[in-house]
């Protein structure tokens, strides 16, 4: 995964609340066996609306998306994160995110930035005219108008994003601890250990 440091550029002022993953990428696009190319189906139903922010030439290739509360609710499809990546989006700013979406975004190197609604409103305003900068190291969002909004991020997630770490590889290195758990469980709760071997 590419390490994340500073994300700078135009931000798509979307702003909608409760954007579900069916809106981010409709089910008909899920039939792929690859992670690539999903940007074509991203926000398909929104793009059917005249004057939508996604087809505004000013936002072409914008690396940041600004959205409302509960972004990414609904299905667990990681295709939503892949679709955003394929559009060129590397960070989403919103007052809140669904749990599954923020996990999926993180695992694909997309930064989810949680800011209070009034700061998101301010960024929506700025985004119409000017670029926005997100700095992971200092955990701040800044604008050319001297706005400076600090944000919180889980230290482990920050570390993985900054280093571009592969979480599977990290956990595989804990194989001994996992084996020790399995040994304990097969003694104390053997009914969980037998799985499909039971029949």
């Amino acid at each position: 995964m590419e390490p994340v440091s500073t994300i700078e550029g135009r931000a798509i002022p979307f702003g909608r609340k409760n954007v579900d993953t069916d809106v981010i990428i409709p089910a008909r696009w899920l039939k792929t066996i690859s992670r690539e190319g999903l940007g074509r189906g991203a926000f398909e139903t929104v793009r059917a609306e005249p004057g939508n922010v996604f087809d505004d030439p000013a936002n072409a290739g914008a690396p940041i998306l600004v959205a409302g509360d509960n972004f990414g609710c609904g299905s667990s499809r990681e295709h939503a994160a892949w679709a955003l990546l394929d559009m060129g989006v590397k960070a989403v700013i919103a007052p809140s995110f669904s749990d599954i979406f923020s996990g999926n975004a993180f695992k694909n190197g997309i930064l989810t930035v949680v800011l209070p609604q009034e700061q998101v409103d301010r960024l929506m305003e700025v985004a119409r005219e000017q670029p926005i900068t997100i700095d992971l190291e200092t955990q701040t969002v800044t604008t050319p108008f001297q706005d400076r909004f600090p944000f919180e991020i889980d230290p482990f997630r920050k570390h993985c994003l900054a280093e571009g770490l592969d979480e599977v590889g990290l956990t595989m290195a804990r194989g001994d601890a996992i084996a020790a758990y399995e040994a304990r469980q097969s003694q104390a709760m053997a009914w969980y250990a037998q799985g499909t071997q039971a029949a």
Partner: protein
Amino acid sequence: MASRPRTLYEKIWDAHVVETRDDGTSLIYIDRHLVHEVTSPQAFEALRMAGRTVRRPDLTLAVPDHNLPTTARLDAAGQPLPIADPESAQQLAALERNAPEFGIRYIGATDAAQGIVHVVGPEQGFSLPGATIVCGDSHTAAHGGIGALAFGIGTSEVEHVLATQTLLLKRSKTLEIRVEGELAPGVTAKDLILHIIGVIGTAGGTGHVIEFRGPVFEAMSVESRLTVCNMAIEGGARSGLVAPDETTFAYLKGRPFAPQGALWDEAVEYWRSLRTDEGAVFDKSVVIDAADVQPTVTWGTSPEDVVAIGGTVPAPESFADPSKQDAARKSLDYMGLAPGTPMREVEVQNIFIGSCTNSRIEDLRAAADVLRGRHKADNVKWAIVVPGSGLVKAQAEAEGLDKVFIDAGLEWREPGCSACLGMNPDKVPAGERCASTSNRNFVGRQGPGARTHLVSPAMAAAAAVTGRLTDVRELAG
């Protein structure tokens, strides 16, 4: 430490901690992993690229469900019929190839036990109380109905579980939803969970695991509990739980992958300890009076957009939050509904009885009870019943339910996810309405432009009879 009263969630969590890191993240062991064709191809591909194997293929079960057509799967000679859509065919073929390559038990499209993963897991006794269960599908929450900590994951996490049988997680907050009293006759588990989502909102459970508590859930069948927990995710919670009890044990006993003999007895003894302790504290608590729950339908494009069947389409201005007003306007525009319209006057052209929410035998019996001796209305153009699994289908046929549906003018189909999300050919035409027993009324969910009204199986059957959203209690007797 051990004497501190704990919630059911905390007990299951504590029993699965491999190790906890300084930042509070824990490596959590996963007991059961269900895999389907849509969210797994990229995970298997990543394993292949990195030269990695599946750590515990025996704790993994693969079943195709999302893409499968629900029409006949075998020709007259008993040979598998090809899948017409090349992309669906490719995705199904990938799972059929990946499962044996990685040593995973595979229940294929023409296997008698095939079905929707969330129906198959409990039905096969693969899902067990107190287990951690994951699947690349948000409705994995369903398995909480047997007292498992079950939640949906993304494809990167599918890969992580395949490779390590663990997930790195932070402890969730806990949300108690206590329902007091008794549900009125004609009011089902589906009506209750829709009502609950209406109360807490689609983000009400974000960051939380819900435990559903109180006499209503204790009296419920396992199947109804699966329905309730299935839609926990529609309230924003990754998991919902109902404490396992004698009803759960009776349901699981003797199922193919359930423990047997002395191991079964030991397991049950442990499962009996899986109850929230007296004095345990939830981060949040919501109390609901069962008497307030009516047969419930949705009017908009979010599962929180619910109203009792006797109610009317709300006016956007009736919401306090300006952004909700805006969302409601957009919803009503999409749904083609005017504020003030009685829900009972809303005509439907399509009926879908199925999905991981409502496709078990109890659901089909409830729908058949309404349809027996009746016929669908002329304005209902398309009405399908899609059993949750081959075993549900066989059971329904043994009870003659298939004949009830067919005589009533409904189609009796093969198992799968079907029109819940329309990844297979089962879609609702643009601009038409569907009374659907599924879980999401999102824009375009059942097909581009499709208008979904979420209802219980009995309510879907009632809508089929009258051709409009109907209070099933009016058809009783």
